[in-house]
């Protein structure tokens, strides 16, 4: 996918918004800085970034397309840019606790106690509300869920996030790309490789730099290990939330073996800081290829038994089939990526549809289902884990030898990249000035998945929420930043 950047006016902006509402194009992200808002979108054979000057600090709202509402709210909180005509103007990231308002805009001291957050109302006879979070019972990230239920049935779920906002994009500003990459790799720790690749590719695009071929292959090797580890962990955790802990234990063993192989191969279990702008930081360790090949063999040996364990356990399928359904129209409307989109008929995988090396030379299938339920999301993950094993075979067999990184010039420019993480497409954009990050933006796939979780749980019983939630496994840290 070749991204072009174009300066536009309010009419051009509105026209682009209309193309999103019509479903002719898909929104990739929306972000801004003082006096300027940007929108990345793709479709109709092109991918572009529109840039609109907003001298008055406002721009025409894009919220005619629903997935954009929270991006607009987040943008208003950090940069102060106001979406004109938006229906929902409640704060999103700013909980009134920073001591400052619009930290990335015309920052001003904030005074007074935080205002209480107003959840959307649900009206009807006999409805009751269940407030949950931000600290949950399990070991998961913090966020608030407000359920409105009629008896056991969920009528409305509203999410409220932002608890993990660390000011990550602000921290990246002023750093050199190598240091900023460390922060990008900590946007969402389970996707550290995907984020690091996306940010590195954005920097390389900004500088017109091509990393050496071997670096691409090693990045893909790490990305596929990360994908398998996460899918295994989540398949086990989904089954665990359906009270089937045997699957959890077996998936946990395999996941651990993936992380140990990664540790042998690249010196870090999660491969943090191994992908850097310009290439990769370390080559495959001498014992690495052997450890990964042994892991692939073992995973191939074990997976069929686990898959039939899932498929043959009627009490488990009873929980997952038909639960938490996302209609294909919604997945398309929200441009949901990853297994959430692909389990609901949206066939998009950045490795195939916005190809980057070495995937343009590798053979793999993209699994798509239409059922949109918990079961479909499990099957998509199983198939993706199998595909990743096949990709690793190809990478180990064909990775070229040679240098692993190119030096970074002190350049100025803008660049972006879309990279397929385990959860879906991760977008990174960066503007460099004299070799330093002037401004960076990261967009997690979960921005377009969280809202679908609200839709998926509607009409299900409250007790099935953990199962639905796990089958999405949206990132909190990645959207809160």
């Amino acid at each position, binding site marked *: 996918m070749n991204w072009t950047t174009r300066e536009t006016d309010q009419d051009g902006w509105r026209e682009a918004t209309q193309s999103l509402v019509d479903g002719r194009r898909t929104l990739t992200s929306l972000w801004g800085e003082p006096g300027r808002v940007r929108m990345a979108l793709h479709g109709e054979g092109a991918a572009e970034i529109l840039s609109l000057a907003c001298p008055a600090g406002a721009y025409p709202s894009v919220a005619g397309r629903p997935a954009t509402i929270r991006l607009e709210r987040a943008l208003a909180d950090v940069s102060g840019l106001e979406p004109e005509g938006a229906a929902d103007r409640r704060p999103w990231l700013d*909980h009134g*606790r*920073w*001591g*400052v308002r619009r*930290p990335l805009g015309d*920052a001003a001291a904030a005074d007074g106690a935080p205002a209480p957050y107003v959840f959307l109302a649900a009206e009807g006879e006999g409805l009751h509300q269940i407030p949950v979070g*931000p*600290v949950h*019972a*399990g*070991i*998961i*990230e*913090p966020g608030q869920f407000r359920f409105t239920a009629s008896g056991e049935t969920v009528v409305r779920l509203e999410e409220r996030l*932002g*608890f*993990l*906002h*660390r*000011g*990550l994009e*602000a*921290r990246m500003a002023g750093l050199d790309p190598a240091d900023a990459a*460390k*922060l990008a790799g*900590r*946007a*969402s*720790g*389970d996707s*550290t490789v995907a984020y690091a690749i996306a940010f590195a590719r954005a920097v390389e695009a900004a500088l017109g730099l091509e990393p050496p071929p071997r670096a691409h292959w090693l990045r893909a090797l790490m990305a596929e290990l990360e994908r398998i580890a996460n899918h295994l*962990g989540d398949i086990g955790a989904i089954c665990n939330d359906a009270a089937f802990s*045997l699957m959890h*234990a*077996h998936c*946990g*063993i395999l*996941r*651990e073996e993936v*992380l140990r192989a990664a540790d042998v191969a690249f010196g870090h*279990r*999660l491969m*943090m800081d191994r992908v850097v702008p310009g290439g990769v930081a370390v080559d495959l360790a001498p014992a690495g290829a052997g450890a990964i090949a042994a892991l692939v063999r073992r995973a191939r040996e074990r997976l069929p*038994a686990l898959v039939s*364990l899932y498929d*043959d*356990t009627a009490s488990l399928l009873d929980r997952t089939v038909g639960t938490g359904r996302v209609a294909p129209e919604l997945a398309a409307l929200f441009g949901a990526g990853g297994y959430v989109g692909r389990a609901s008929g949206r066939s998009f995988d950045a490795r195939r549809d916005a190809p980057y090396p070495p995937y343009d030379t590798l053979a793999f299938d993209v699994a798509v289902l239409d059922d949109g339920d918990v079961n479909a999301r499990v099957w998509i993950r199983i198939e993706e884990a199998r595909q990743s094993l096949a990709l690793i075979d190809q990478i180990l067999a064909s990775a070229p030898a040679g240098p692993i990184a190119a030096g970074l010039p002190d350049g100025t420019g803008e660049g972006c990249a879309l990279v397929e993480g385990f959860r879906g497409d991760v977008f990174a954009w960066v503007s460099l000035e004299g070799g330093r990050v002037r401004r960076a933006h990261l967009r997690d796939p979960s921005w377009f998945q969280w809202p679908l979780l609200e839709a998926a749980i509607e009409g299900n019983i409250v007790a099935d929420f953990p199962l639905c939630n796990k089958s999405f496994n949206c*990132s*909190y*840290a990645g959207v809160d930043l």
Partner: protein
Amino acid sequence: MPRLLAEGVLKSPLAEPAPPLAELGPAFAEAARRRLGRSLSIRQVDAGSCNACELEIHALSNPYYDLERFGLRFVASPRHADVLLVTGPVTHNMREALERTYAATPAPKWVIAAGGCAIDGGLFAGGYACANGVASVIPVDLAIPGCPPSPTALLQGLLTLLEGKPSSG
């Protein structure tokens, strides 16, 4: 399923020997042993983590590390906890939740700061959105470094609390 279950019975467990204990102040260690015996209930609190720390904390429950054989277990409520295992630099948006969790934990209680972020704010120290680590918000008894700390490092830290071995130095 029968084959998988049989394997679990017939094969030897995957669990590996416990790692050596970390250094810990002798007074604190003795107190932990006296009060807790060989059991520790842990409440994990994510106060701004990137979630990688949580992944490794989760790994403690897999059959390789098998946390529960040491009498260590994760609990769902701070009211049942002896130990708060806190990750992340403590975002301002999570500060009150952490303080309230700490207040809800019955004394005697211990706090572990796990990971570089929790120890001093890590890469986020000094930003507009975060405190500079857990100790800037609630008292911390033990720090487990790493980004993220490996399951072995986490286990080592937890066992140190449990065994209450005085430091060798």
